């Protein structure tokens, strides 16, 4: 049973292209994850949470899970190394290889996803959403300027009406002058 959706076949073409090059990156990620689990295991205060003798302390459940995770990660890393022994010599994680898996435009879309909440905070929903839509559509290869502008504005208006007006979910208004503009628009509505 595979749960990566129907696009799985397309998705795995890039990683198959650089299969042995990608495995080193995979190993590094696994080791980092293992270190994170070890750090979490030792960072929790084991003295808290057990007020009665025999009661499970606060740390018992997460530490048990972390222990399982650490053991499983070690096994997984060993399996990975044994399976690809000898192939690591030809493996590298150069930028070029990563670009084969994750092209620049997609990386920029990911960065936009991280910038959008920042935009929400400072310039508010009404300004950050059309900018986000416009830039993401451009990065995704949409060439038609008119469509980009119309869709950006349309989606913003539809979502504003739906969430802010109909569902009474107060959307982010931003700070400073942006907040004043949004308040003025809301007063008009």
């Amino acid at each position, binding site marked *: 049973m*595979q*749960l990566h959706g129907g696009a799985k076949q397309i998705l795995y073409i890039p990683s198959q292209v650089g299969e042995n090059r990608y495995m080193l990156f995979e190993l590094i990620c696994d080791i980092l994850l293992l270190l994170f689990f070890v750090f979490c295991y030792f960072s929790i205060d084991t003295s808290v949470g057990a007020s*009665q003798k025999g009661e499970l302390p606060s740390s018992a459940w997460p530490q048990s899970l972390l222990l399982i995770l650490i053991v499983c990660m070690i096994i997984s890393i060993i399996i990975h190394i044994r399976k690809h022994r000898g192939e690591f010599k030809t493996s590298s994680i150069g930028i070029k290889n990563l670009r084969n898996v994750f092209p620049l435009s997609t990386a920029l*879309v*990911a960065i936009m996803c991280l910038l959008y909440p920042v935009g929400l905070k400072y310039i508010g929903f009404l300004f950050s959403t059309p900018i986000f839509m416009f830039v993401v559509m451009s990065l995704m*290869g*949409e060439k038609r300027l008119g469509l980009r502008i119309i869709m950006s504005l349309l989606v913003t208006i539809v979502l504003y009406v739906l969430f802010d007006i109909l569902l009474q979910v107060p959307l982010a208004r931003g700070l400073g002058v942006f907040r004043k503009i949004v308040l003025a628009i809301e007063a008009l509505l």
Partner: protein
Amino acid sequence: MLDILINGFQIVFQPQLLVLITIGVIAGTIFGALPGVNAPMGVALMVPFTYSMGGVEGIAFLVAVYCAAITGGGITSILFRIPGTPSNAPTTFDGYPMAQNGKAAEALGVSLISSALGGTFAAICMMLLSKELSDVALRFGPAELFGVAMLGLSVLTSLDTKHPMKTFISGILGLFLATIGLDPVNGYKRFTFGSTYLIGGIQMIPLMIGVFAVTEVLLRSASLQIGKEKLSDAPQPGKTKTKLMSFSDMWRIKWTILRSSIIGTLVGILPGAGATIASFLGYATEVKVSKHPEKFGTGIIEGVAAAETSNNAATGGAMVPLLALGIPGGAAAAVMATALMSKGVSLGPLLLQTQPEYLSGTFASMIFTNIVMVVVAIWIARIFSQIMKLPYSTLGSIILVLAMMGSYALQNNIQNVFVMAISGIVGIIFVKQNYSPAALVLGLVLGDICENNLRRAVVLANYSFAGVISRPMTAVLLLTCIVLTIYPVIKTVQKKSKEKKAIQQ
């Protein structure tokens, strides 16, 4: 019993109530389809409208919103891989691949019909066995609920048979992520690292939207860019008209619907369990009993039917402890309880004697809601499916904005949007490394229930862990869980060794 049924339909079949139920279904389906607006939130938003209604009208209206919200969530799960409510997460496993294979119409049809069948089954069970089901619910203490949650986890090893270890790690990681924040029993901070946001724990909905929807958009964007294909010209999953399930298809999955209906109803009556666990458990059961478990997740109607039948059956199940015992089993039921109590309704064992019209009205309105729901949801699905005709550069952007809004609207919190964006980006590495986002979400959903009930059970068993696992029902549930967890692993190992031998020969 027949009196209750006749009385119920007499109450429901009044023009005013029929109109109210229809409005409730429309509102509920739209709420469900909007990411970030979950079923309890939808019900809560509609409570003020019940102030001017009578008691029976009020509960019928809220029941309509509740049932329809669970169904509406399936629409975006299938079309965009955004689960409208957490209980629709398993619908994405097969619904989205079906949509990608040009079978969106079929998937939507299966989702709506199976939802209606599950909901109707639960309503009938509620009518016939309300008292008996309540007694069963009362026998389920924290130890048994821990067993049920563990049973839900047993699906982990079946979610991806090609990478069982990584899927198992994903599930346990989900359980671990659920421990971040305040300890559910004593309120101690865990893994908050000084962050005030993390005190409240990692929110399930933003994480789920991130790893499902955002990861998918980014991966699809990447694969299309690498494939030198123009995103704006990328083929869309074809016409998305909603068509009802054919009778032959329905007959083919009759046992799936029956099993999922029973599971959904039973899980629904358990306090604290709810539609999300029901849908995961329903899906897991179908994977386990299927002769072709490897086909699940590739886009088959059994997967969609199992998830949607069980989550809708759970809505009916949740009404049993609410009306018969006065115990709200979940957040939506709790909102309904407050609305009813404000009308002077005394929920509990005396309801049938003192105010029988509430019981019969709820049963009948649930059945009617499930019938109306099919018509209304088809109509709403058609509107949503229009978006599918857009080029992927536009569709992908809309999905991203919807995902952002869904995460924000949950608590009006910008940090939830960050969590969603980070989850989406980390999700790419996760998927590329063959970890399972579905298992991660399953762990996150069940994490709190597992720990909370285990610790409460240990306290109730006089601080004895042995006392917890030796309770007959818990022992049976845990043993079943162990067998179901180990069996697929053994099966995979056997298959691999057979293949090895064949190659050697």
